[in-house]
């Protein structure tokens, strides 16, 4: 039980981050805070993928004669890390679009509170 908790600590942290992100998206009324929640949610998934590539006692995936490449246990799996570079870029683009939309929303309603905007739309 103790091993199960400690041995998977990176996954527990990811789960906590995921929950914080979802909480921000669902319960926060300020649109900027919702965006922050979204970023935390994305970060949690990115960290999950990154932790997939790690191994105990392995080194960075750069070929070193001291560690033969024939034994895969010598090196980390670089694929999740490179994939997550793309996912981070996607996240940054999403953030940019989100802020552009927030600026347009603020210019029209002079507020970023969800309830007040919905009241004005009605």
């Amino acid at each position, binding site marked *: 039980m103790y091993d199960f908790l400690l041995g998977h600590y990176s996954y527990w942290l990811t789960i906590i981050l995921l929950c914080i992100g*979802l909480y921000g*998206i669902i319960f926060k009324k300020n*649109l900027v805070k*919702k*965006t922050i929640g*979204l970023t935390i*949610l*994305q970060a949690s*998934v990115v960290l*999950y*993928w990154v932790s*997939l590539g790690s191994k105990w006692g392995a080194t960075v995936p750069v070929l070193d004669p001291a560690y033969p490449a024939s034994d895969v246990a010598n090196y980390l799996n670089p694929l*999740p890390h490179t*994939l997550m570079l*793309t*996912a981070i870029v*996607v996240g940054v*683009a*999403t953030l940019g*679009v*989100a802020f*552009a*939309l*927030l600026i*347009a*929303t603020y210019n*029209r*309603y002079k507020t970023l509170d969800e309830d007040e*905007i919905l009241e004005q*739309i009605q």
Partner: protein
Amino acid sequence: MIETHLPALIALNFLAFAVIIPLFGIWKSELCQPLATLGAGISAGMSLYGFLYYLNDVPLRYFFGAWQPPVGIEFVYDGLSAFIILVINAIAFFVLIHSKPIAVREFPNKLMAYYSVTMLLMLGFNGMVLTGDLFNLFVFLEIASLSTYALIAIGEKAAPFSAFRYLIIGTTGGTLYLLGVGFLYTITGTLNIIDMTAMMPEFAGNSSVITAVILMVVGIGVKCAMFPMHGWLPDSYTFAASSSSALIAPIGTKVAVYVLIRVMLYLFGIELLDLVIPISYVVGLLAAIGILYGSIMAIAQDEMKRMLAYSSISQIGYIIMGISLANPYGFIGALLHILNHAVMKACLFMVSANLRMKEGHSDISKFDHTYRKKYPWTMLSFSVAAISMVGLPPLAGFFSKWYLALGTIEANNWLFLSVILISSLLNAVYFFRILEKVYMKNPDADEQVPDEGLVSDEVKPSMLYPMSIFAAGLFLIGIFNVAIVAVIMNMFPAGL
């Protein structure tokens, strides 16, 4: 020679035009729309060529940089993706022809950006359909989604806010999908769909697979507005510019549904899907609730675009229900309904765009019998599309509902059958009230507008013809449905 590169050319053509349009747009902004139409036309032509000549061959697999999968990324051009690609590119071509006067009227200063983003949107959709790699699919999904947010944000006062709400829920969906792919990668070590499909039977009943299925279905469900995740759709379609909603409404959700078909029926397969939890039944039940909810909400709407948006939720429910039945009739019904609904919704959104262009509103309570004289062709197209939506033969909508009904009977699912029948009646309620207002005089009206002196005041031919072509297409699809069904029969996933 060109054949082997066809899958990549269809998609990358849009990327090329996304760059070409700003280059020419700086010089002359009126060139943007013809260039965008040309781009969509070239891709639609290539899709038609590929569809006619390569359908019965083995799937065309294009390896980028000649890297063999599972190491490299591949595009898979098989019967199913060829069909969907043809549908979305042809619809986009006609909608782009239609969009010029609306774009000039609603956002004259943003033509260059608008058409460039349109091309990126189509790149995303084409990539999602063609790709054979789960992570690549996520990237194309996000390209398409980001373009969708941008296109929806151009419009009425509330448009940026509704686009932002869609961004929050859509990106959450995309992230959940990515998490699901992560679970699959952990156990299989590959991201290639064909490779992963071959490995799946080894992991039957594995808890990671179950979690991955649920996460991916929820993530894609957000994008295709499956019942509890539909909240973004009505506002987005209502407040967006008419040209954007006519482009996104027919094809955006269809592409997401295609991904759902790929994941549920091809990647996992129906046996693996239902091994521990009856996921397909749950999805079907949600679809059934969505069908009824969308139809009832559509009756309550006074704004035509909002009514069509709710109707979209209900029609997407039909398609998802067809998938969840997982028998040949349900599959045929779902794919036929993807085609039918794309054509019908494009036609209906074009009608609402034409009315907004001429009247400045599309408020159903203000419709009256003068429309019959003023907009004869627009209203005729509306009637054809509406009757097809309700499902009267020989129009297209009847046949997809027929096959879906046969599918529910084959699955002995009387609940779903009654949902389909009740929903058809509800469709009749919300479409026929418009027909009644337009084609019959209201005896209770305070002042009677005389029929004499009303002359046809139709929109320009560039807006009229695409709409009329779709209306005529509904007859053609209905008449030639046997040929289309014969094509769909070649696409059955294994084990169906």
